[in-house]
């Protein structure tokens, strides 16, 4: 959890806005540090977290989260975290073995045109399921109650590269928003990797998906590397775009920051005010 990012977004573990749909887009850089931030943030805020980790293994996320002060293994045991390890589960689909049926959530691997309905059903049952694990109790002896559900996806671009069409992914994100944000008053955070060199034509691709998602979301974080190239002290820039949904505040607000990722966190600063130069 990055304290500076919390103050930029005006969210804190004990006071954060609900029904938010946050999109993180990364271009020419690695914005997974933001996913780690949101994961540790919502676990600290005692929310029920459903994490679709399609890019890295569980142990990777656990190792990074431990540096941020959160134990994913413990959270999983207590029932606070539901983790879908895409890499491991996909093996069961791609190399089927007897007695080892893969998770139904990844049924689209066998037929990408089938749609992401099974994945959505997995998300729905994880987010609206019983709040505590069996045998896990809080101090008063009852099952532990968690806060509003949160869905984290890392990352949507993987679905595109697995053959799922842009429209199908947009349907999936719409259903996640309708269920998790509107019905369960939770939050959704999705990461999308956009490649500038991609030239698939005007109809498909991450760019079109990003455009569609931008219309659905309430907050966008556009992260990209510096246009001038690599810099040791500044790892990239992040543009924060709010799209306020309240009827009385219809406006978008854009802010631009540069950031540097450290061992146990990240610092954010206005352009040109990096500590290396001041």
């Amino acid at each position, binding site marked *: 959890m990055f304290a500076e990012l919390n103050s930029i977004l005006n969210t804190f573990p004990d006071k954060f806005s609900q029904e938010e749909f946050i999109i993180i887009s990364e271009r020419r850089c690695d914005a997974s540090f933001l996913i780690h931030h949101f994961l540790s943030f919502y676990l600290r805020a005692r929310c029920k977290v459903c994490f679709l980790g399609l890019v890295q293994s569980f142990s990777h996320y656990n190792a990074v989260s431990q540096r941020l002060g959160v134990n994913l293994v413990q959270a999983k045991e207590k029932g606070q975290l539901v983790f879908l390890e895409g890499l491991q589960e996909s093996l069961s689909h791609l190399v089927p073995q007897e007695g080892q049926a893969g998770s139904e959530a990844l049924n689209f691997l066998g037929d990408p045109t089938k749609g992401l*309905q099974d994945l*959505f*059903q997995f998300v*729905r049952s994880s987010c609206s399921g019983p709040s505590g694990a069996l045998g896990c109790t809080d101090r008063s002896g009852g099952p532990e109650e968690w806060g509003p559900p949160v869905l984290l996806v890392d990352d949507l671009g993987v679905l595109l590269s697995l053959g799922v069409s842009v*429209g199908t992914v*947009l*349907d999936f994100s*719409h*259903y996640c928003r*309708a*269920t998790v944000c*509107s*019905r369960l008053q939770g939050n959704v955070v999705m990461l999308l990797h956009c490649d500038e060199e991609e030239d698939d034509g005007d109809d498909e691709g991450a760019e079109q998906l990003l*455009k*569609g998602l*931008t*219309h*659905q979301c309430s907050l966008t974080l556009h992260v990209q590397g510096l246009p001038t190239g690599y810099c040791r002290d500044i790892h990239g820039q992040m543009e924060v775009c709010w*799209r*306020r*949904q309240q*009827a009385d505040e*219809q*406006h*978008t607000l854009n802010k631009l920051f540069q950031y540097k990722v450290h061992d146990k966190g990240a610092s954010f600063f206005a352009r040109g005010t990096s500590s290396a130069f001041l």
Partner: protein
Amino acid sequence: MLLEILQGNDSGGFLLIKGIRHVWVHLFIITCALLFRDEDVHVILFEVSEQELKDGLKEIPSQKLHIHNAYEDPLGWTNSTSFTAQHFSLNYLTQMLKLNPQPKATTLVIDSLSWILRHVSTTNVCSTLHQLKKELFWVCFMPICIRECIFQQEHSFRIDEDLTITVLNKTPNIESVPEEHQMDPTANLTFNLRLSDKEREAKEKLLLPFMFSKDNTEKLLLHSGSGSGRILYEPDASDDYDQEDPDDDLDV
């Protein structure tokens, strides 16, 4: 056209609003305006939840507004009984809109057409809209522009806090750029830079030594004297150019 819609003077038609997503307050406004036209309004919601719409419309004459919720389950994944994208067909819509005994006084608002176009073929959508256009007046909201409009009109309008709409002039407020008076550089000098008419004449008549005039041209070009055009070339020692030894430093 917007003025006619608000005043209720039109005879029906199809209005397409293109806009970016967060300006869906227009959806509220248009719905309000249409309610003031004393018509039945049917709203099909794909991109906005029913609660958000109701929060925006504070006073709804509920008997005139019919909301069809397609936000929660637009594709039938959760088997709820709401409106789905597949319901967008001529038969179903005609039946749905027959709730009003006077079918001509009905308006249909769709947010948004992009959703339908992703799941129903474009030709079906166009033919359905065309068939129903004859009987209804439509408003569709399409946040992502993927089609070009055949006929466009630009309107500027202002929405007040009590949700009344005022249509401003078509052209935006462009201030005419005032003509800048050219500064006269010869205005405040201690010496005179101006020419009198006689001086100007003399200046224009002046023949510069190297300018071609008729006399000069004839002298040089037409009277080429005998032998004066021939070129006599006598190479000297430094003009002896050997291709194989241009610097003349080889001991050949």
